[in-house]
């Protein structure tokens, strides 16, 4: 009896103690679509998480779950995080959009941040980066560098974010090289190294000497290296282990400032739902070092474009531009509005093939 009482009170004391600690700390959860070691997309989100830890130290506690499938399983993971007392949860893949909204309804006091989506509510913010600005720089380099005039593009899923990237890269490759042709393969996965490698090999066999990827692993880089005379760009992360060749540059996502700012907002109690869409100018999209495999004049041109994008002097989607079927989209000098870009489901004129439904 005495022992039981002792144990109970000890347990209660312990429980109180834990609760006390938990109340002091802000708990931040991260849901990842791939492994943190993918060297690409998820890796950069985890760098952002580490930056939060470095910034706030003991003030915050971070948890993450990797390899979470898009769909019902992600809902389970988010619910679990919310039940374990997370104050702020970052869900870092497009396919988590509906699950995030569903779970957010059940936990009105927990703040959610969904990457690359467009559905918001009182406790769900969205954030994304204007990757298409980076694609414009890539397209410029790719258009100059290709000798076969065939550029291969590995798409993941036919969603606006990916289609924007294809359009932006194509427009700028075409601008510097009117003969350029894009071959697009849809992998229907964010992360499957074997499939990504196969897709890259197929594109190379069909004459592509530049490979752009919108999937997360470094497998296409390895395939390009094996082919010998093919250049690639790092996706989401620098992928510098393949520099200076085949990887000649990269788009780097830098989530750290955003993650720190939003965590700070939760700590201060000033968090509110909003939509953030930053590009090169705000530092959310970085251009990895352009390697010496690129001629100096091309490099200078790419960097000049980067500067103009950063300052806002130039927009990646500036008219005159037509849609694939030839209908006019943007008049001369007109730039695309964010609404159209966010829901982009069409190719620009010159691209071949249909977008899968």
């Amino acid at each position: 009896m005495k022992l039981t009482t002792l144990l109970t009170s000890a347990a209660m004391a312990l429980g109180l103690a834990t609760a006390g600690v938990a109340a002091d700390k802000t708990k931040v959860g991260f849901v990842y679509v791939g492994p943190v070691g993918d060297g690409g997309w998820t890796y950069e989100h985890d760098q952002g998480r580490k930056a939060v830890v470095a910034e706030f130290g003991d003030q915050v506690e971070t948890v993450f779950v990797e390899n979470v499938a898009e769909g019902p399983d992600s809902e389970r993971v988010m619910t679990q995080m919310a039940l374990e007392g997370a104050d702020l949860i970052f869900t870092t893949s497009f396919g988590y959009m509906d699950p995030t909204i569903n779970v957010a309804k059940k936990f009105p006091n927990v703040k959610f941040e969904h990457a690359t989506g467009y559905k918001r509510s009182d406790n769900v913010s969205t954030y994304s980066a204007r990757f298409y600005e980076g694609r414009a720089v890539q397209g410029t380099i790719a258009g100059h560098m290709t000798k076969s005039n065939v550029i291969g593009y590995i798409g993941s899923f036919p969603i606006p974010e990916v289609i924007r990237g294809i359009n932006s890269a194509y427009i700028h490759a075409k601008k510097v090289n009117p003969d350029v042709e894009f071959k697009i393969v849809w992998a229907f996965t964010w992360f499957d190294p074997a499939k990504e490698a196969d897709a890259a090999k197929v594109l190379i066999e069909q004459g592509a000497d530049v490979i752009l990827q919108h999937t997360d692993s470094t497998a296409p880089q390895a395939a390009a290296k094996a082919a010998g005379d093919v250049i690639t760009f790092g996706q989401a992360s620098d992928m510098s282990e393949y520099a200076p060749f085949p990887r000649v540059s990269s788009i780097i996502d830098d989530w750290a400032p955003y993650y720190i700012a939003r965590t700070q907002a939760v700590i201060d109690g000033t968090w509110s739902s909003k939509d953030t869409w930053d590009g090169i100018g705000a530092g959310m999209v970085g251009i990895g070092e352009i390697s010496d495999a690129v001629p100096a004049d091309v490099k200078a041109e790419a960097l000049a474009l980067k500067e103009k994008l950063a300052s806002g002097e130039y927009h990646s989607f500036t008219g005159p531009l037509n849609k694939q079927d030839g209908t006019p989209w943007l008049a001369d000098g007109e730039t695309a509005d964010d609404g159209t870009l966010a829901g982009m489901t069409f190719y620009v004129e010159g691209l071949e093939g249909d977008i899968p439904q």
Partner: protein
Amino acid sequence: MDLSAINPVLLIASLMVAATPILLAAIGELVVEKAGVLNLGVEGMMIIGAIAGFATAVETGSPLVGFVAAAFAGAALSLLFVVLTQIALANQVASGLALTLFGLGLSALLGQSYVGIRPPEMGQLYLPLLSDLPIVGPILFSHDIILYFGIALTAAVWAMLKFTRVGLILRAVGENHDAAHALGYKVVRIRILAILFGGACAGLGGAYISLIRVPQWTEGMTAGVGWIALALVVFASWKPWRALLGAYLFGGLTVVQLNLQAAGVAIPVEYLAMSPYIITIVVLVILSADKSSAPAALGRIFHASR
């Protein structure tokens, strides 16, 4: 649409690479099933082979040593299956599934420090004159040695099952273990050897993915190849050459559909993406319309006292 962009020679050469992991795993499983054991742990043994082969190749700098290690690792994991099903007489289906789950988890743990590393490259076979031949050279004479090993293994297993006494005993154990036991054959010992062989083959198949086909290590990188190999064995009616055909058909269609996409063929991508599964199954089902059937003792537990 521009079909001329597809180079048939390179297409055939790369489909052979895509098919090899499936082929290796399927041939191993075929021997296991011929001995009357159903091991559903192929996927688990493959992924263990993938990480063991990758880690060993990185540490020693030799892909070949990696492949040897992968075979041993696959066999070692199958030893767990042996203990469960041949000694503890546990249910083979449940044990096999457990083996897959265990293999996937263990490989993720073992592989944590190997993410993002590049493995040493496996040299390709180069025969002066032969490899330089047009068309035939790239298709037949300029692959890595493991690919040839896979084909040789298929031939060896076929010959072993059809012509040798060892093959006869193996089949006897798989068809009727009580009769084989009555004749004095060590049923359990023969099955254990078959399971170990299957494990080694699956391990090799896994390492082929992590060392040659991709080549890098990432968690869960076998992505269901083990299950495809299992299905192939059944649809191939437990015949080695049909397993080879099925593997090449599947690997081929996987590569062809990507090629068609890149060439801009006007077939919806979704249909292209599912075509490897459907066409492989249909072809093998049509082929298996003859009388061949599963080994009679497949999946049954043997205990000498009965």
